[in-house]
C-alpha cells in the first residue's frame, strides 16, 4: 500500500455518502475514513478504506488534502467517533461490585456503569484515561489534572 499512500486524491459527497477519486484517473468509489489508532492517538493518522474493507490510502494528517476534501474528512471523522469527553465528574461510586458514574461531557450529561476497572479502563498516559461502559460506549478524560478538584476526588474513589 506504500504507493497508494502517496497518490493524491480528492474527496466529495453525494447526498450523505463520501466518495474518493484519485487524481491519476480511475473511478470514484465510496470510502470510509478511520483513525488507525482511535484510542491512543485519535486525529493522528487517517486510513481511507473501500467497501471491501481494503485500505486505499493512508495519510499522516489532513493537511495534504485540498480544503474541500479536508472539510469532508474532518466532518466524517467527527460523525464516526462518538466518544464523549468528560468535563466534570459529578459523582462516582463503587458499590455492589459496579462503578457508577454521573458525568458532564462535551455531548451533555450522562450516567453509566463500568464493570471491571482492569479491563474497561485504559490509561493512555498517567493523566489521560479512556473508560468503556458496560455496553461499549467510550468516555475520555483528556487530562485528569485539568479537571476540577471535586471531579478528581470522585475519580480517585473508583479508579
Amino acid at each position, binding site marked *: 500500500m506504500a504507493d497508494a499512500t502517496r497518490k493524491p486524491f480528492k474527496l466529495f459527497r453525494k447526498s450523505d455518502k463520501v466518495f474518493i477519486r484519485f487524481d491519476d484517473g480511475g473511478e470514484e468509489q465510496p470510502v470510509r475514513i478511520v483513525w488507525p489508532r482511535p484510542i491512543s492517538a485519535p486525529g493522528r493518522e487517517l486510513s481511507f478504506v473501500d467497501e471491501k474493507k481494503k485500505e486505499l490510502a493512508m495519510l499522516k494528517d489532513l493537511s495534504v488534502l485540498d480544503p474541500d476534501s479536508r472539510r469532508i474528512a474532518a466532518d466524517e471523522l467527527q460523525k464516526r467517533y462518538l466518544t464523549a469527553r468528560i468535563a466534570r465528574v459529578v459523582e462516582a461510586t463503587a458499590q455492589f461490585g459496579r462503578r457508577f458514574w454521573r458525568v458532564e461531557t462535551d455531548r451533555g450529561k450522562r450516567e453509566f456503569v463500568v464493570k471491571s476497572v482492569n479491563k474497561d479502563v485504559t490509561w493512555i498516559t498517567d493523566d489521560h484515561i479512556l473508560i468503556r461502559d458496560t455496553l461499549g*460506549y467510550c468516555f475520555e478524560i483528556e487530562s485528569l489534572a485539568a479537571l476540577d478538584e471535586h471531579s478528581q476526588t470522585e475519580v480517585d474513589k473508583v479508579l
Partner: protein
Amino acid sequence: MTSQLDGKLPDEVLKHLSPHIEKDEKILYSQGSDLTLDRRFGETYLVITTARLAVADREKVHLWLKLTPELKVKVDELFGGARLVAETPEGERHLIYYTKVYVPEFASLSHVINELAKGKQPPGPEPAEAAYCRRCGAPLLERGGNCTGCVQRLRVFWRLLGLLQPYRGKVVCMMLSTLLMVAAQMGPPYVTKMIVDEVIKGHDYARLSLWIGAMVACGLVLFVTGVVSGALMSWLGSRLVTDLRNRLHAAIQRLQMSYFQRRESGEIVSRVMNDTGELQHFLIDGLPYFLVNGLSFVAIACILLRLDASLALLVFVPVPFLICGSSLFWSRLMPLFHKHGNQTSALHSILNESIYGIKIVKAFTQEQKRVEKFDVTSDKLFRTRFNIERTFVGFAEGMSWAMSLGVTAVWYFAAKRIAHGDPSLTLGDLLAFIGYIYLFFGPLRWFTAIVNWMTHAFAGAERVFAVLDAQPEVYDAPDAVSLPKIRGAISFQDVRFSYDRGKEVIKGISFEIAPGEMIGLVGKSGAGKSTIINLVCRFHDVDSGVIAIDGHPLKKIRLEQMRHQLGIVPQDPFLFNASIMENIRYGRPEAGFDDVVRAARAANDHDFIIDKEEGYDAVIGEKGTTLSGGEKQRLAIARAILHDPPVLILDEATSSVDSETEKAIQEAIAYLIKGRTTIAIAHRLSTLRNAHRLMVIEDGQIVEMGTHDELLARDGHYAKLVKIQTELNKMQSEAVVWKA
C-alpha cells in the same frame, strides 16, 4: 436523566408528526435514540408509518422518506455507536445516530423497515433486553439484568426462606437457641448489680453463692447456645447455598443455547460460584451477627429503660451520631476495598503473564520491564492496603472514644445522684448500666456494613433466581413423537434463521439428504455452515421454514432421543478431565473395554494410546496427559464411532493438523461414515472426497450443489476453490523439494 426509551412516542413529538400524517396512514412502530442528530446526548425518534418513515424530535420533524421497494436501510457501525443509513435512488441519507445502548433495537427495526419497504407484513420489532432499570432508570450492569439499587430485599428473603422449608425443625431449634443466647448475654450485668447491692452493700453473704452460681450458669448457657446456634446456622447456610448451587447448575444444563451465545462462560461460572458464595458468606457470618445483635440491642434498650429511664435516655443520645459516623466510615472504606480488589487482580494478571509468557519475556529480553511493571502495581497495592488499615484503626479508636464519652457521662450523672443519696439509683444499677452500655454500643459500628453486605448478597441471590426462572429448552413437547431408531433422512425447507433479529444468517435454504448419504458443506468462514449444523442439532429453533428428520419436523421429535442419535466430531473437540477410556465411551458409559478398543482402532487411535505410559487410563487435562490437536480429533472420532449414531456431523475435523495426521483422520472418517447420514464441513477439500454430494454455501444461501465432478464441470465457485487449493498444495510440495 438517562432511561430506557421504549416504543412510546412523547406527545411533543407526536404533535409535530400528526399534521403530516395522511388520512389512511397509521403509525406502526417508533424507536427513540439517545443521540440527537448533531450527536449530543438527547432524544431522536425514528417513526414508521404504513407508508413512510420519519425522523423527529421534540422540536420538529427532520425527514420523511417513502417506503418504496427501492429503499434499503442498513446499519453503519461507528465508534461507540452506529447510525441507520437509508439507500434511496437519490443517494444515501443518514437517518439517525445512536450509542451502543440501542444497537439491538435499531438492528431489529431496520429489518422490519426493509420488509415493509418490500411490501411484506413482517412481525413487529423484537423487544430488546433493557440496558436501564425499568423502575429507577439507572444503567444496568448487563442488559436485562437486575438493578442492585432496586433489589427487593424482602421478596428475596422470603424466597430464600422458602428454600429452608425442608429443614423447618433445624430452623426452629436455631431460633430458640439464638433467643436463649441473647437472654444469657443479658444476665451478667444484672448479676453484677445484685452482687453489689445485695451482697456487698446489703451484707447478705448467703446469697453470694446463688449469684455466683447464676453467673456461671449464664456463662454455660451462653457457651452451649453459642455452639448450637452457630453450628445450626452454618449448617443451614451451607445447606441452603448447596441446594441453590445444585439447582442452578441443573437449570443451566437445560437452558437454551441462545443463553450461552449471549454470555461469556466466565460470567456464568461466576454466577454459580461467586454469587452463591457471597450469599453463603452472608448467611453464615452476616445474618447471625445481625440477628443476635439486633435482638440484644432491643433487649438492652428495654432493660436500660426499666433500670433508670433518665440515664437510659442519656445513653441513647450518642446512638444517632454513632450510626452516622459508622455509615460515613463505611462509605469511605467501600471504594478502598474495591480498589484493593482491582489492584490485587491486576497484580495476579501481571504475575500470570510473567509466568505463562516467560519464554517470550526472555526471548525479547524484557525481564527488567516486567520487574518494573510488577513493582509499580505492587506498590500501589501496598498504599491502598495501608490506607484501608489506617482508616480502620482511626474508626475503631474514634468509636471507642465516643463510647467512652457515653460511659463517662453515665458515671458523672449517676455518681452525682448516688452521692446525693438518690434512693432510686443504687451502685449496682450503675455497674449494670456500664456493663450494658458496651453490649449496646458495640454492634452499632457494624450495622451499616451489614446492611450493605446484605444488599450485595441478595443482589447475587436475585441474579441466581433470574437464571432459575429463565426459559429452559422444551425437552418434550406434548405432541412430540418418539423416534427410537432414526433412518437418517434430513430435509430443510426454506429455512431461515438469525442469532440476532435483523441479521439473518441462513437465508432460505432447502435440501434433502437421503439416509446413508454424505454431504460436504463448503464455503468461506462466516457463510453459515456451522449454523446449519447447529440447526440440525436443534441448538436453536429456526425463524421460519421446517427442518425434518425422517419426515418428522424437528420440533415434534423428543429432544433427548433425537440428540442421542446424533454424533458430533467438532472442530475443537472438547474432552473431559477424565481417562481416555472414559472420554471415548462418553456417549455410551456402559460400553465394555473390547468395544472401546474396537472404536479406538477404527479411529487410528489405539497405537498412540498404548504408547502412553498409562495407556487407556491416562487422564486428559491440565494435570494429566497433553494430547496433540490430531490426537484429540481422533479421540473425538473414536467417541463418535462408539456412540454409533445414525446421523453424523463432522465440523472441520481435519483443520489444524499436518498432512500425515490428516491421512490418519481421513481413514478414520472413511470407516466412520459407512452406513450413516453424514454432514461434513471442511476447509481442506480433500477431506470431502468421500462425499456423495457437495453444497457450496455463500452468505447464508446454497449457491451450488452437486457431485465433485459435476461442480468441476460447472466451473463455478467450487471449481475456483479447488483451483486455489491445488496451487497451494503444489507450492507446499515444491517447498518440500526445495528444502530437500
